[in-house]
């Protein structure tokens, strides 16, 4: 396997452009997640976009750099927290007398459609966090092993 040098091997154009682009990619991913219920997009697509920004970071700079920004423990925690948000909202609906993910039964002092919109927003955020973590984790598992040897 080829050795990765400590120096950054990509050209300065690519490095500068991705340094500028990555925050905007992440902002767009957040927009897709949060605005997903009213327009095309949603938790899955936004999560994939957020994960892709970290993958771009790892391609252009180094895998070490990406692992420094997004360590394994943080990714595992993100994965679990996203799943907890999703299933927690489902269980809250179950506890308040409805079916699983039946949002309108939540005992909040709001109109039914607002409770539904709020719950869908949190569910989408949970999906987005989990998908982002899993995409980055797949990438680390595929590429990280080769760099270690």
């Amino acid at each position: 396997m080829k050795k990765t040098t400590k120096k950054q091997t990509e050209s300065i154009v690519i490095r500068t452009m991705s340094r500028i682009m990555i925050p905007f990619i992440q902002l767009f991913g957040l927009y897709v997640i949060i605005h997903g219920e009213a327009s095309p997009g949603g938790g899955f697509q936004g999560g994939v976009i957020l994960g892709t920004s970290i993958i771009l970071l790892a391609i252009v700079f180094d895998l070490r750099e990406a692992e420094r920004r997004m360590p394994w423990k943080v990714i595992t925690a993100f994965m679990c927290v996203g799943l907890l948000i999703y299933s927690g909202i489902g269980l809250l609906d179950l506890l308040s007398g409805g079916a699983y993910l039946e949002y309108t039964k939540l005992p909040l002092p709001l109109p039914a459609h607002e409770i539904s919109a709020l719950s869908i927003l949190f569910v989408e955020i949970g999906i987005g966090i989990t998908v982002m973590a899993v995409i980055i984790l797949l990438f680390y598992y595929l590429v990280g092993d080769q760099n270690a040897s």
Partner: protein
Amino acid sequence: MIYQLDLLLLLFLVVCAIMAVRLKDLLDSIIVLAVYSLIMALVWVEMNAPDVAFTEAAVGAGVTTFLFIATLVKTVRREKE
């Protein structure tokens, strides 16, 4: 729906699919598969399904291509004649 555009896109789609299967070099195959995904996303938009098109463009053309390339690094690129 613009039928000429649909016909053109579907023609490209079939050409890309056949090329992705027939090419000998696996890296070329992966790139053609990414092009296939992009055209497929255009077809989804044309069929008024922007949500699916979003998924296709993000996953099919973005992540899958990269995962294929990362897998290809660990195997051989050309099949033995």
